[in-house]
């Protein structure tokens, strides 16, 4: 292997230093990592997944199964980059890249796990499933994972930011080879918005190494002119279309690491195209023969690419093995480069291409195949045998075996789009049967075998895409000289040689014998074969192995290939990093967190901020030297004895307007709301149609045609969506509208026996007397000259006032109330302190005390079902046998026998039945109550109200520990509610 002194478009004046397994090497600008490794004589680049066999570079692009490397480098922006599974054939070489093998220890060239290969007889398909079952796969998994696998992730966070782009176009052309460029030219000439996408850095596809003449000049000139003529189109080189989704939505991955300018970050494109032209080309198949996985066995087309594009001669003494004409381009190029070439052509009459090769100096062995190769870390010899007599072998010295088993059109995107394939016997390939709507096929994908056919087909596809959008094009098609039709391919699958190991899937180490075993064990469906042997399930998605695998399965089950069929093609065509999929939606931008209007004030007051749903809210305000638990007790006690200040701005606020607002809400809410008088407030439940409790909250009637709903902070969106759904679909004739005004208002609650004294110092026109503003009522007016309202509702069980002002004044009001209340000991309290206060009162927290099966009667609210005549949401569900079962779990209080012991949430209440414990419910809330000076709990317990009436004691059980508690009514503080009113 060596770099030739001239030829190719590689930049010889621009050396690029890199390292392989720590050894310094030099490539040239324009190299891929793979071409640079070959130019430096590197044969072994990895160890196989299962058997740890040495592996070399096989292909030249996305199909590569072996050259998966661990790659580190620094990008243009100076960011240290790491790709644990870089496909060397697709990596554009950059200065300072450090590449290492991934599956060998201490190195891929001297790998101690290579001994595993000696035991290959004991590692057939399904080996792991059969062997490592008892007692538990997880016992073996870590060790097996260590030996088998690819690169290792670094522990550090990905330093990159990725971009996501959304785009629309009229015609998306996938593939920048001759067919794709011809299609893009034609479509763009009609004035349509065209996107042309190719996964390589340079345009031209196979023209880059095949060359040729188009419109009487070198093909490369035609490519350059055509691309220059597409100035109005969106051109995306280095971009792989990896997935086709419904309705012409396509996923594109733009690799920008080696791009000349702009961000170095990769971009994920979501493109919606009205028409799509697929010109995705074809992938060469390997030949299947004994030890065909050895380093030095390469795809013939890849050998040609390395020679023409990178001036890398991959071998000096080459055996080219083929069953079709395309390999003769490689033969001629190798001969011209001075290599000694022997051709083993499976066809007995190879035709004119072979004669031309013979004239160029190649030795042609017609009707022959390669029957074996030798040399562990690089080919040293190859054996050629007549196909008709495989035991008659001749051993030839060789350092490279270039193979071509025919071509598989790259049908992946076509198949993902729902297209059906047909087996073409003459071409020995699966071809697209008919294009899907809005889709046009061209080039090798559509079976075109010559440059002239690719150009003509591409042009036709571009015209057809334009015509489908009512555009007509007047543009001469590009032309290439006619070439004689190639001699037909002769299908050649694996060789009938017993006792040999012939590889089908290089990346996942699947051999012919594994397929035979699967067939013998009746895994005859191709989908079963895939999962049993893992054929085609590696990161190369079986690009080189699928058809050879199907052919082997057909042979072993006595069927034809089309009867076997193919497995389902799924995205992505190439691996897509999770970072690229996430784009900017990570860290702080993953779920934007909402801040309260007085956020800065809470921080200044020492708040311990925590996330509650989408809100960042104060949990409590620990003082210096105080623990969170101590702060909670102090704050809760302050509210009971003096006064507290709470930021309730996140509580939902939905305004409901309209002459039918009362009628509509009465159909929605469980409780009666139509009789509510303006200025009054009612606590209400909202049910699902299944009768279960969706949310609770207060409903205020502001005016006869205007209500204000206060759903829980985290349920506001769901409640608004429910109102809209019922209005639009069930009661569209009712005149009512909804408006979420949560963010418009700051709402601060002053709670405690001294709350009214504090409010009296507020400059407000609102009458604060109990006659004018009783518990569960509200009034509008000015507050410190701002428009606002004061509502008397309580979540603590103490006299409370909720003051609402425009959100922009929330911070000022917070500071103002702290100042006004200083002499009365006003204390800021957070959610966790409120949670203790509401637990003392037995106020439920929906989603904490209730779950998706809780009905209103379970919570002790059965009145509205009896009283309300209208068919409110969920009503009928409350009348079912299940809803009226006597043994339902009911909301109760629990006083632990040990007042110092706070049982954990989730602790079960149990009874002994038939010698075993049976759960009769569980604790949903527990706390140490500062008001009672002891532990308290709330829970849902079977027949709980009867147990409470009897003052029964139950057994609690949690994580092996038993304790006892007395069942009580769910209210521990001021059960008569005197403190709320007086």
């Amino acid at each position, binding site marked *: 292997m060596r770099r030739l002194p001239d030829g190719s478009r590689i930049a010889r004046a621009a050396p690029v230093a890199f390292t392989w397994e720590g050894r310094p090497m030099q490539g040239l600008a324009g190299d891929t990592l793979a071409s640079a490794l070959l130019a430096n004589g590197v044969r072994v680049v990895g160890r196989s997944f299962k058997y740890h066999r040495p592996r070399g570079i096989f292909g030249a692009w996305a199909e590569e199964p072996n050259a998966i490397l661990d790659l580190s480098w620094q990008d243009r922006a100076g960011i240290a980059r790491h790709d644990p599974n870089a496909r060397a054939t697709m990596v554009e070489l950059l200065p300072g890249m450090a590449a290492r093998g991934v599956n060998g220890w201490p190195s891929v060239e001297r790998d101690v796990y290579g001994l595993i290969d000696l035991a290959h007889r004991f590692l057939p398909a399904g080996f792991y499933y059969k062997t490592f079952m008892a007692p538990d796969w997880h016992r073996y998994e870590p060790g097996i994972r260590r030996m088998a696998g690819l690169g290792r992730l670094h522990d550090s966070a990905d330093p990159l930011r990725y971009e996501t782009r959304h785009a629309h176009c009229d015609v998306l052309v996938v593939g920048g080879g001759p067919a794709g460029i011809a299609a893009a030219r034609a479509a763009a000439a009609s004035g349509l918005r065209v996107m042309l996408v190719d996964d390589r850095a340079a345009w031209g596809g196979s023209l880059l190494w095949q060359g040729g003449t188009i419109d009487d000049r070198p093909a490369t000139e035609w490519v350059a002119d055509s691309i220059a003529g597409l100035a109005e189109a969106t051109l995306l080189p280095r971009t792989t279309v990896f997935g086709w989704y419904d*309705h012409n939505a396509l996923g594109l991955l733009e690799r920008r690491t080696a791009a000349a300018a702009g961000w170095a970050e990769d971009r994920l494109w979501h493109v919606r195209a009205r028409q799509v032209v697929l010109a995705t080309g074809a992938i060469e198949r390997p030949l299947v023969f004994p030890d065909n996985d050895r380093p030095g066995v390469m795809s013939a087309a890849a050998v040609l690419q390395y020679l023409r594009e990178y001036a890398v001669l991959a071998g000096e003494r080459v055996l080219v093995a083929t069953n079709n004409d395309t390999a003769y381009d490689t033969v001629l190029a190798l001969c011209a480069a001075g290599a000694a070439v022997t051709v083993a052509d499976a066809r007995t009459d190879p035709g004119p291409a072979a004669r031309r090769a013979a004239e160029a100096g190649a030795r042609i062995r017609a009707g022959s195949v390669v029957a074996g190769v030798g040399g562990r870390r690089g080919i040293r010899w190859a054996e050629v045998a007549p196909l008709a007599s495989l035991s008659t072998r001749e051993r030839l010295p060789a350092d490279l075996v270039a193979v071509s088993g025919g071509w598989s059109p790259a049908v992946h995107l076509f198949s993902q789009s729902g297209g059906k394939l047909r087996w073409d016997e003459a071409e020995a390939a699966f071809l697209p049967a008919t294009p899907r709507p809005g889709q046009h096929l061209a080039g090798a994908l559509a079976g075109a075998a010559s440059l002239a056919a690719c150009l003509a087909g591409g042009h036709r596809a571009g015209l057809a895409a334009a015509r489908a959008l009512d555009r007509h094009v007047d543009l001469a098609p590009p032309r290439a000289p006619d070439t004689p039709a190639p001699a037909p391919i002769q299908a050649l699958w694996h060789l009938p040689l017993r006792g040999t190991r012939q590889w089908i899937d290089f990346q996942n180490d699947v051999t012919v014998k594994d397929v035979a075993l699967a067939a013998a064990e009746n895994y005859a469906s191709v989908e079963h074969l895939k999962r049993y042997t893992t054929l085609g399930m590696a990161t190369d998605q079986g690009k080189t192995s699928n058809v050879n695998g199907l052919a082997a399965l057909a042979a072993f089950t006595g069927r034809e290939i089309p009867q076997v069929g193919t497995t389902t093609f799924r995205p992505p065509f190439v691996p897509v990093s999770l970072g690229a999929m996430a784009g900017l939606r990570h860290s702080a931008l993953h779920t934007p967190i909402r801040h309260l209007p007085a956020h800065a004030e809470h921080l200044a007051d020492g708040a311990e901020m925590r996330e509650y749903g989408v809100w960042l809210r104060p949990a409590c305000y620990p003082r210096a030297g105080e623990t969170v638990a101590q702060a909670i007790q102090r704050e809760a006690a302050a509210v009971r004895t003096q006064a507290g200040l709470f930021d309730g701005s996140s509580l939902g606020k939905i305004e409901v307007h309209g002459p039918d607002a009362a009628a509509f809400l009465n159909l929605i809410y469980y409780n009666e709301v139509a009789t509510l008088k303006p200025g009054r407030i009612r606590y209400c439940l909202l049910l699902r149609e299944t009768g279960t409790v969706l949310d609770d909250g207060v409903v205020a009637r502001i005016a006869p045609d205007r209500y204000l709903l206060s759903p829980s902070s985290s349920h506001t969106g769901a409640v608004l969506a429910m109102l809209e759904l019922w209005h639009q*679909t*069930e009661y569209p004739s009712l005149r009512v509208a909804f408006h979420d005004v949560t963010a418009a208002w700051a709402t601060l609650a002053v709670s405690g026996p001294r709350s009214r004294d504090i409010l009296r110092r507020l400059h407000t026109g609102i009458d604060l007397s109990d006659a004018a503003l009783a518990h569960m009522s509200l009034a509008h007016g000015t507050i410190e000259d701002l428009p606002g309202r004061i509502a008397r509702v309580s979540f603590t069980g103490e006299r409370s006032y909720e003051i609402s002002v425009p959100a922009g004044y929330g911070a000022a009001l917070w500071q103002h109330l702290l100042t006004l209340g200083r002499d009365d000991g006003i204390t800021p309290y957070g959610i966790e302190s409120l949670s203790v206060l509401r637990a003392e009162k037995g106020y439920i927290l929906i989603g904490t005390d209730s779950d998706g099966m809780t009905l209103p009667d379970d919570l002790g609210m059965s009145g509205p079902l009896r009283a309300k005549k209208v068919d409110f949401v969920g009503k*009928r569900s409350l009348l*079912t046998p299940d809803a009226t079962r006597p043994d339902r779990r009911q909301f109760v209080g629990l006083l632990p026998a040990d007042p110092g012991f706070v049982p954990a949430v989730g602790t079960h209440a149990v009874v002994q039945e038939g010698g075993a414990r049976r759960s009769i419910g569980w604790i949903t809330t527990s706390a140490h109550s500062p008001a009672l000076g002891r532990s308290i709990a709330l829970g849902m317990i079977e027949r709980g109200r009867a147990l409470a009436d009897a003052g029964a004691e139950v057994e609690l059980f949690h994580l092996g520990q038993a304790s006892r508690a007395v069942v009580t009514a769910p209210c521990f503080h001021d059960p008569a509610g005197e403190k709320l009113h007086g």
Partner: protein
Amino acid sequence: MLLIPCPWCGPRSEPEFQFGGEPATRPVPAAEVSDAAWGAYLYVRSNEKGPHRELWCHAGGCGQWFLMERDTVTHAVLRTHKPGAAA
């Protein structure tokens, strides 16, 4: 990723929409509805293979609910219309 023609806004991409399932007629009044009929309304859907009626909401756009006929095999959108419009 479906391209959904919102009856108010025109064609928009699926992530803007919320799926509301197959519509069911609500039996009323509650007192006259059998347990079986109510259970069927809550839980039983035809789940057609082929053309299928569905409720969708343009939640990330106009916020309106509408009916869509969609082929569950090919994912082709056959038509959309506003609720109450001739079915």
